[in-house]
């Protein structure tokens, strides 16, 4: 019996690894449930936020697109968890040794996981965000957000709304990649989740508590969540500390940093 010749092309190696990672992910029952939870929670919270908002007259300060995308701030926690578990489950079960024996090029493994998780949340995020915007379109006019008060029904044909929606999908993808990086570095699921959620929640609170205007601005600019969420703003954009896409870029930098640290740890430490 002869073994197939060693020395696969880079592309084949990568695509086989990707296939293996996808198989791992899709054969885990919890993945499906968690994705379902992301969708349901995001849409539910967005709808609840829409339903509890009112606009009595012209010139309410509310941003309808941002309001109908509020649920993203809740769904992001579950996105973080799925991404963390994709890595830390391997360490807690000891399967990492099997994975690395099958695919010794460690960075390929991490890249495959990143591509997979990113793609998964691109798809799931698109569905979720679309549904949230649709909910806003349906619910808000009944709560005073009518043309009479200066609010058109939410439509993806509207430039800023489209930007907010697409940006929110990318936002979820970046959150997932950030979490993946942290989990690769830390390996223990509870600690990784604590760190990621801590990162998510700490900076916004610190920023809103500091009354020094300069500090407040800077903190909002560098925080991954605060900056990243600028992508959802459609009203009063020029007054933001950063442009929406710059804000998303800050989050992208955080994600890249986390993935780099994670890659270094994966490469250098014993499995």
């Amino acid at each position: 019996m002869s073994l197939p010749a060693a020395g696969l092309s880079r592309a084949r190696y990568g695509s086989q690894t990707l296939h293996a990672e996808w198989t791992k992910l899709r054969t885990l029952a919890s993945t499906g449930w968690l994705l379902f939870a992301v969708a349901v929670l995001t849409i539910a919270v967005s709808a609840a936020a829409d339903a509890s908002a009112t606009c009595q007259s012209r010139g309410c300060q509310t941003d309808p697109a941002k309001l109908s995308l509020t649920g993203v701030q809740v769904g992001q926690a579950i996105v973080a968890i799925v991404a963390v578990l994709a890595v830390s489950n391997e360490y807690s079960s000891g399967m990492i040794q099997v994975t690395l024996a099958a695919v010794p090029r460690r960075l390929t493994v991490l890249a495959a996981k990143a591509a997979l998780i990113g793609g998964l949340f691109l798809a799931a995020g698109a569905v979720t965000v679309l549904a949230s915007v649709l909910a806003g379109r349906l619910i808000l006019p009944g709560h005073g957000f009518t043309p009479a008060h200066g609010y058109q029904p939410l439509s993806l044909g509207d430039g800023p709304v489209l930007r907010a929606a697409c940006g929110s999908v990318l936002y979820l993808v970046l959150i997932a990649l950030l979490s993946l990086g942290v989990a690769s570095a830390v390996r223990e699921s509870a600690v990784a989740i604590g760190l990621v959620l801590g990162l998510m929640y700490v900076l916004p609170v610190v920023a809103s508590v500091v009354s020094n205007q300069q500090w407040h601005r800077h903190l909002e600019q560098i925080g991954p969540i605060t900056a990243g969420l600028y992508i959802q703003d459609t009203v009063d954009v020029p007054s933001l500390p950063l442009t929406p896409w710059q804000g998303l870029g800050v989050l992208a930098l955080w994600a890249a940093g986390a993935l780099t640290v994670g890659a270094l740890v994966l490469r250098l430490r014993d499995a």
Partner: protein
Amino acid sequence: MTTVRPYRSSAPAKRNDFAQLLHAEWTKFRTVPGWVTGMIVAVLVIVGFGLFASGGGVKASSTKACPPGMSSADCRSAAVSLAPPENTIALYLIGTFAGLIAVAVVATMFMSAEYRRGLIRTTFAASPVRGRVLAAKAIVIGAVTFVAGLVGAGGAVIFATDLAHQRGLSVLSVRWPTELRIIAGTAALIAVAAVFTLAIAAIVRRSGATVTIAIVTIVFPYVLSISNGGATGITDFLLRVTPAAAFAVQQPTPQYYLAVTSPATGFFPLAPWAGFAVLCGWTVLALVLAAYLLRRRDA
């Protein structure tokens, strides 16, 4: 076969004591360096945040008390035109939620580590009465986190107030029973939250899910209400119903209505002990369910 004289254990015949179980659980906790470090991190985070908050204070302005008899709605609308928010002790304890995240991680690990490697079987072989094991773990984690909370909250208040005074900022003064209630209440909040997390870990058995549930129910509503600038609508509802209601112990005095009615300035929808009772209620429920499941399931 020959009859051999059976062996008699040389171990002293002592009565089975709950204190021994407590001793064992305490030994378990203090001998894992990671958990001890986690508690120290929690304390440092709380104190650190307090110092940071004290640095970002505002200039002094006189306190405005609402005259008794004025309806709360009128008082709130009157307060809108007041000066920017002042520093209250609640501000210096803003780091409690961050310390709680660290505490949640440690409390989760204290229980879920037993399941990870089948250690739970060793534990139950040594102490077959499972309800007692849960009680001992709850008492140990509760006591440790209470002490950590006292040190953290006390340290944050003392150091931050000192720092604020040095910079010439005024702090809304509260009578010392209230101050004591705030500090001890914060420590109690952290301790009960830790026990809640422990119970969830016993129910769910997976550390990732437990930490998530703990943080989402205890920390998230609080964070949401601060970053949205106040407790309105959905955040108001969450701060009444979820375990995060317990943060209400940190409000200085209800009758000071300030410009921004947010937990950061000490405004909460529930009275202090009412909010704490909500957390206690959730914790009791979780403990009962955990005890039931522990007994029913195979180890």
